[in-house]
């Protein structure tokens, strides 16, 4: 039988240990893993480190670091827990693991950089627990979501599910642009509103529903139509992502031009009867709306949902896909629909995908644009065919 001291000494002999100065040298390459308890981590750690308490290390490390050849530096407060942790990772097949001798205490004593993580409250940890369990999101991702700013154009069929899922996910600030009031013909699909809010401005109705769902979310209502006159003020407030659920072509082209000039990615969704389209326009990275549709269709080819109808659940599907794209953009994970247009047919239950490429002659996003300021978008969309 071995004593704790004997066991620790033996384990330390079987792993690699690094001092604070050498560990600091490795910071650009190595992933630092803080294995202390939450309360210790909240008081400060090595900048860029991820936090996995010692007791959860074996169960979570494969999800967080699937590459077993990745260089890892483990640390605790004094170098003992991280030594046992390094031994455990070796046994799991991690090839390049070291333990910081002297731990975070020694790191601090050397005057090396530290940072205090912004941390979730215990209530937030419960609310977002299913996100925290996903390696691609985790606590750092959830904090990104809580710091995220998403602007929704329209609080209608598409904006309803998109705003609800973004709010539930904890997007910290949701802007909503809509000049409309809730009408009883909206309620077949616009689930952010209710019979109780009939006649109210949609932005106020949506705000009430969203804040009941998640008080972490600040809703910024813009009870106005997006126009060339107000777009600079609204877009200029700083948004990570725009979710476009507009109902008309002039607004689509206005959103496009403004987003290109402001460099804000747009998650585009559109619907008609049983069919939907979803894509992501990421200025400077991929195509824009004008690359996809250089000209709006003539009015007879562009009936509205009010004229042509729409299956109530369709905006639920398309708006949820938009929320998914927006969340990935805020988190910086996964592959978005940039360069791909998803075509949904709810009647046949099929999903097709076509590619969308940047138009080198695009009047707005090409290197030599011919449109550099806002135009009269209503006239642009009416005067298509002579």
């Amino acid at each position, binding site marked *: 039988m071995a004593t704790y001291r004997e066991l620790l000494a033996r384990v330390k002999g079987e792993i690699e240990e690094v001092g604070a100065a050498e560990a600091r040298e490795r910071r650009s390459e190595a992933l630092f893993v803080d294995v202390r308890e939450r309360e210790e981590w909240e008081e400060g750690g090595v900048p860029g480190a991820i936090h996995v308490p010692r007791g959860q290390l074996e169960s979570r490390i494969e999800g967080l670091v699937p590459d077993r050849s990745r260089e890892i530096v483990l640390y605790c407060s004094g170098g003992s827990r991280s030594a046992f942790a390094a031994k455990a990772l070796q046994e799991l097949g991690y090839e390049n693991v070291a333990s910081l001798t002297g731990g975070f205490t020694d790191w601090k004593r050397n005057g090396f950089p530290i940072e205090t993580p912004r941390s979730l409250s215990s209530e937030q940890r419960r609310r977002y627990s299913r996100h925290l369990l996903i390696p691609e999101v985790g606590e750092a991702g959830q904090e990104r979501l809580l710091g995220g700013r998403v602007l929704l154009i*329209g*609080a*209608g*069929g*598409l*904006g309803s599910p998109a705003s609800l899922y973004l709010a539930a996910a904890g997007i910290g600030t949701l802007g909503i642009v*809509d*000049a*409309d009031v809730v*009408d009883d013909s909206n309620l077949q699909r*616009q689930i952010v509103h209710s019979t109780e809010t009939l006649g109210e401005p*949609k932005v106020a109705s949506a705000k009430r529903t969203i804040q009941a769902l998640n008080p972490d979310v600040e809703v910024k209502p813009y009870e106005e*139509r997006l126009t060339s006159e107000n777009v600079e003020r609204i877009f200029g407030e700083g948004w990570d992502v725009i979710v476009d*659920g*507009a*109902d*008309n*072509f*002039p*607004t*689509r082209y206005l959103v496009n031009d403004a987003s290109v000039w402001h460099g804000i990615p747009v998650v585009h969704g*559109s*619907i*008609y009867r*049983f*069919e939907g*389209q979803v894509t992501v326009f990421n200025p400077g990275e991929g195509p824009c709306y004008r690359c*996809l*549709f*250089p*000209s*709006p*269709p*003539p*009015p007879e*080819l*562009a*009936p*509205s*949902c*009010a*004229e*042509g109808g*729409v299956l109530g659940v369709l*905006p639920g599907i398309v708006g949820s896909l938009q929320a998914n794209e927006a969340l990935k953009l805020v988190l910086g994970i996964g592959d978005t629909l940039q360069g791909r*247009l998803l*075509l949904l047919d709810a*009647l*046949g239950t099929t999903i*097709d*995908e*076509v*590619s*969308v*490429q940047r138009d080198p002659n695009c009047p707005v996003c090409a290197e030599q644009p011919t449109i550099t300021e806002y135009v009269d*978008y*209503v006239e642009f*969309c009416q005067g*298509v*065919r002579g």
Partner: protein
Amino acid sequence: MTKVRIPPTLRNEVGGERELIGEGETVREVLEDLSGRYPALEAQLFEQGDLAPFVNVYVGGEDVRTLDGLDTRINGGSMILLPAMAGGAPASRRDAC
């Protein structure tokens, strides 16, 4: 023989069909075959002999404007016709989709 998917906004022009079979080796030949049978379609697809700028045509998932336009060969692929959809209400309309 090429399967051509018809978008909902063009279905009135083709008797409500969601998909048509067209004959021809190139996009132009297939679309002319369809326009021959459904004359109302022609005005919605062509403008001065070229593809109308508000309609996208995809062969094998690629926009034919990035290939050879109307001369793009079908080579057994299927075609998708796709105009923009916005809901498309006039700007004054206030019923968001």
